[in-house]
């Protein structure tokens, strides 16, 4: 079959995880590059990229429910919060200021955070199966406000608004990852762990997406009534979509704050949800690689605006003056969301498709 990249001789090879050689090669190269990165970059970039990896896990989860299954969720900040506090509770210091059980092993608190968030996702799902589209969006938005209230008021667990608490501790197989050791720095270890976790979560999501479950999601997104008629159990698959997506969000929430080293109830606001929606939409809804690209793009955006600030002398770097970079950043969010949706609805993934098609068909334009 050499030289015929689009010729498939079996259903299995068409549905394969990486159905072309170039995909296999690119992913392989990217993984190698990712594993080698900590040796080449400064620490501050590494912790930023580690944050990107975690954000990508969350975005993939949201992409599964919003991009694949077509169920809009503005409530992911709530599931992030559930994950963050479950993990912080399990691994917290039993004698500390806030509640904790002292199980510091990551292999324990990470799945637990995901599972508790999954449980809440399943609890919310009955609403999701009854509602559609914008009704669902507003209901999940309500979830964020209710969650914020509970997180803000439950002082024993969360430390309260403006005070916060320490997040989960990063111990893996008994190794402490959050301190700089003799051979590797904290940020190098953090990046490796987060990168490997991203790989695991992304591969799992890709496998879900190409399985029966994923096809059911797509059918529901494209037309739920039609899906119901051809035998897709709507209630069950919508619940599954919310459950998986909440699991991802819970894990991402648990990991995200270990990098910052601090959890504050105010973080789980509508803004967080909007950021993740923006990642999914700007990256390209309904694709795993798009969600990852979107997560990296949105997470790197603040750093990018800060780096280009010296080129724009009319924009101040001080928060107290009025065209400042923080305002520019917020406006950029808004403008990017609007721009992508109007001009390239398939997001960054769509831009890549355009480039690919151009070179594939070169020198013809069709």
């Amino acid at each position: 079959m050499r030289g015929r990249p689009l010729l498939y001789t079996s259903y299995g090879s068409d549905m394969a995880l990486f159905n072309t050689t170039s995909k296999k090669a690119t992913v392989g190269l990217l993984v190698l590059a990712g594993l080698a990165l900590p040796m080449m970059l400064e620490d501050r970039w590494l912790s930023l990229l580690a944050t990107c990896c975690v954000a990508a896990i969350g975005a993939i989860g949201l992409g599964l429910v919003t991009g694949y299954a077509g169920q809009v969720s503005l409530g992911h900040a709530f599931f992030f919060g559930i994950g963050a506090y479950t993990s912080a509770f399990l691994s917290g210091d039993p004698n500390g200021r806030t509640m904790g059980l002292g199980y510091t092993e990551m292999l324990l608190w990470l799945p637990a955070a995901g599972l508790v968030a999954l449980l809440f996702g399943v609890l919310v799902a009955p609403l999701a199966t009854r509602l559609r589209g914008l009704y669902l969006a507003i209901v999940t938005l309500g979830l964020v406000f209710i969650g914020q209230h509970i997180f803000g008021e439950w002082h024993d667990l969360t430390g309260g608004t403006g005070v916060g608490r320490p997040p989960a501790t990063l111990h893996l197989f008994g190794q402490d990852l959050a301190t700089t050791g003799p051979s590797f720095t904290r940020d190098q270890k953090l990046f490796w762990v987060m990168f490997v976790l991203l790989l695991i979560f992304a591969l799992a999501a890709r496998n879900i997406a190409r399985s029966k479950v994923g096809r059911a999601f797509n059918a529901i997104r494209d037309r739920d009534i039609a899906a119901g008629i051809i035998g897709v159990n709507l209630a069950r698959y919508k619940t599954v979509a919310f459950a998986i997506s909440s699991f991802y969000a819970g894990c991402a929430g648990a990991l995200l704050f270990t990098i910052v080293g601090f959890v504050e109830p105010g973080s789980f606001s509508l803004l967080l949800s909007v950021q993740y929606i923006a990642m999914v939409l700007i990256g390209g809804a309904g694709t795993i690689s798009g969600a990852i690209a979107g997560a990296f793009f949105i997470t790197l955006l603040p750093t990018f605006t800060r780096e280009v600030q010296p080129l724009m002398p009319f924009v101040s770097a001080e928060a107290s003056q009025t065209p400042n970079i923080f305002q520019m950043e917020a406006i950029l969010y808004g403008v990017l969301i609007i721009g992508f949706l109007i001009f390239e609805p398939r997001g960054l993934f769509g831009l890549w498709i355009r480039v690919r098609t151009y070179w594939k068909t070169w020198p013809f334009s069709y």
Partner: protein
Amino acid sequence: MVELIESVIRGLGRGSVYAMLALGFVIIFKATRVISFAQPAFMLAGVVLVTYLVVPLGFWGALAAAVALTALLALGVERGAVRPMVGRPAFVVAIITLGVDIAVRVVVTAFIGKDVRFVHDPWGVKTFDVGPVTIQERHVAVIATAAVLVAALFAYFRYTRMGLAMRAASYDQEAALAQGVSVGSVFAVSWAMAGGLAAVAGTFAAAGEAVDGLMWLIALTALPVIILGGLDSLLGAVLGGLIVGVLQEVVANYQNTMTWLGGNVSVITPYVVMLIVLLVRPYGLFGTHEVERV
């Protein structure tokens, strides 16, 4: 008892603000089948315009000018960001309005700056007594304004040519087009009306208080209101607004007897009520049950 009556009147005042905001959402939804998340930004823009214009024009003059300018802003947003998206999924357009909201709100908040700004309304926190009950003048003012506006709107939809066109377009866009209704101008008028209503609502919400950037959260409370009333029901928006306003104030009044719920539980009451109502009636109290075809 006196306390309860007082909180109900405060609640009606607050509810009137919600009702005006919710009407804006519903008018846009009926015309375009989209929820505009840009309403908070329009509300904030209206208030800030009033705080700037109130010095040269006086309160009512500033209010009128702010309504006109905010309506113009809404028109611009409709033309620039929403019209190109006609025919695309409602969710995508909703997210676009979310983007508009973020961008506009940053600009408007920059104009609030660090000074304390006021709308300089004629009522402030002055009160009067009816028997044992003390009532704040600003609450009466907002209830009266909302009543006049709601009556005017209902009359508009009932008796004018454009109102009829808007009702027709919301019922069936293609049929309305075939009858010669300019659906484009229906969209434009809807957005302008929603912008104007948001400006009025914001100004009255700020009466007697300082204006700050967090006021946009008031406009978000109109979202559970419209879900409660039903997305496509004007009456539902008004009643839903009043119900939520009264509930919020009553809960705020009695929440110190329920300390286990935590402070400020009144802030999330609308969302809790919304969740409960939706479990029983998925299309709100007055919304029409959607007929679905494949």
